[in-house]
Structure formats: C-alpha cells, structure tokens
C-alpha cells in the first residue's frame, strides 16, 4: 500500500516533471539500531516510483565507513543529495516523515532545478563572499 494518496502522487509527479537534473539520494542506513531506517526506505521508495529524476543509492553506514566519512554522515538514517554525481552538501538526518517529507521534496526540487523559490540577488551577493567552511545545522521536528 502506498503511503501517499493518489492525488498527492499526481501532484508530486507534476512537480518532479519540471526537474532539469537527476538527483541522487545517498541513503545511509544500518540494519541494527536504526528505528526509522525502514520507514525512510519506504518513503524514498515512494519518491523513486514517481519519477526517473530521483535515484536512491543505499549505503551501509557500518560496512561503508569511508563513503560515510566522505559525506560527513555518522548517523542513520542519513541522506546526502547529489546532482549529476556532484555533492550538493544538502544533508538530512532522521526520517523524512511528516512535515519533513515536504522539506525533502523541496530540497530535491531545488537541487534538480525545478524550484520557483530562488534566493534574492542580495542574498546571492552575500553568499558569494563566503570563503570559509560554514556548516548550517537546522533542528526540526516532524510536526
């Protein structure tokens, strides 16, 4: 059974149809000690069923430590978004459920070039001056 209603699926299909690039979601998972990894897998499965523009690449956090380190992910479930194989440096830790499902969809659309919400020219100008690493961590809850 699908987690999404038929109308939600259709809405998402239409949104994803505008994607210009394929987004790969690296899904860092582990078999033991991850309560929400199964849920996350189901949610990601729903997305890949809607469009060819989303690809999920499962990475075992325990067995593929080097790959996890490369993306700075030390927890499961963890997601890293890539565009054409290139790291976008967008990460999500925890199951993309509830409110956060739309955050993931929004991140995919932005990375895939299908978002109509762009940063202002002023913001883009300010961001161009950033030359040192900056790690933004945003704490959220599913509701």
């Amino acid at each position: 059974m699908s987690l999404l209603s038929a109308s939600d699926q259709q809405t998402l299909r239409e949104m994803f149809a505008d994607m210009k690039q394929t987004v790969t979601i690296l899904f860092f998972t582990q078999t033991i000690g991850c309560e929400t990894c199964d849920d996350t897998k189901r949610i990601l499965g729903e997305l890949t069923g809607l469009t060819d523009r989303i690809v999920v690449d499962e990475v075992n956090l325990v067995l593929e430590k080097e790959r996890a380190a490369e993306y700075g992910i030390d927890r499961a479930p963890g997601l890293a978004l890539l565009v054409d194989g290139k790291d976008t440096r967008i990460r999500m830790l925890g199951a993309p459920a509830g409110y956060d499902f739309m955050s993931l969809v929004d991140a995919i659309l932005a990375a895939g070039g299908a978002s109509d919400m762009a940063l202002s020219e002023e913001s883009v100008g300010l961001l161009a001056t950033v030359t040192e690493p900056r790690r933004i961590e945003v704490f959220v809850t599913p509701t």
Partner: protein
Amino acid sequence: MGLANRMALENPNITAVTVQATEFYDLARKYRVTGVPKTVVNESIEILGALPEPMYVRAVLGIDEES
C-alpha cells in the same frame, strides 16, 4: 529547511544539515534545542525560529544588520 539548503546550493563552502531533533536527542541536547526550528552555524551562531530570508542569510553569515 529551504533557505539553508538553497544557501548550500549557492556556495560550495556551505553545508546544510537538517536534523530531526526528536530522533537525535543527543545532538538536540548538545545544542540546547528547546524549540524548533533552531539553526546552529559552525557550532557557535544560534538562530531561534524562522526568520525572513534577508535576516536569516545575514544571521547565518554572521553579518550585523547595521553594517
């Protein structure tokens, strides 16, 4: 969150991590998260709540409103 992700897409020096506070209680405790959204930049700058884009970008970059 949308803004942080878009900032990461804009500049390769920026990484945006969305963390489920209810799942990673240790991280939430480490950064004293008592309400969401809460943004922490480079483990030092703290931004509480959602801000309009110009304010959020400046806060994340550590730029004073007045300058």
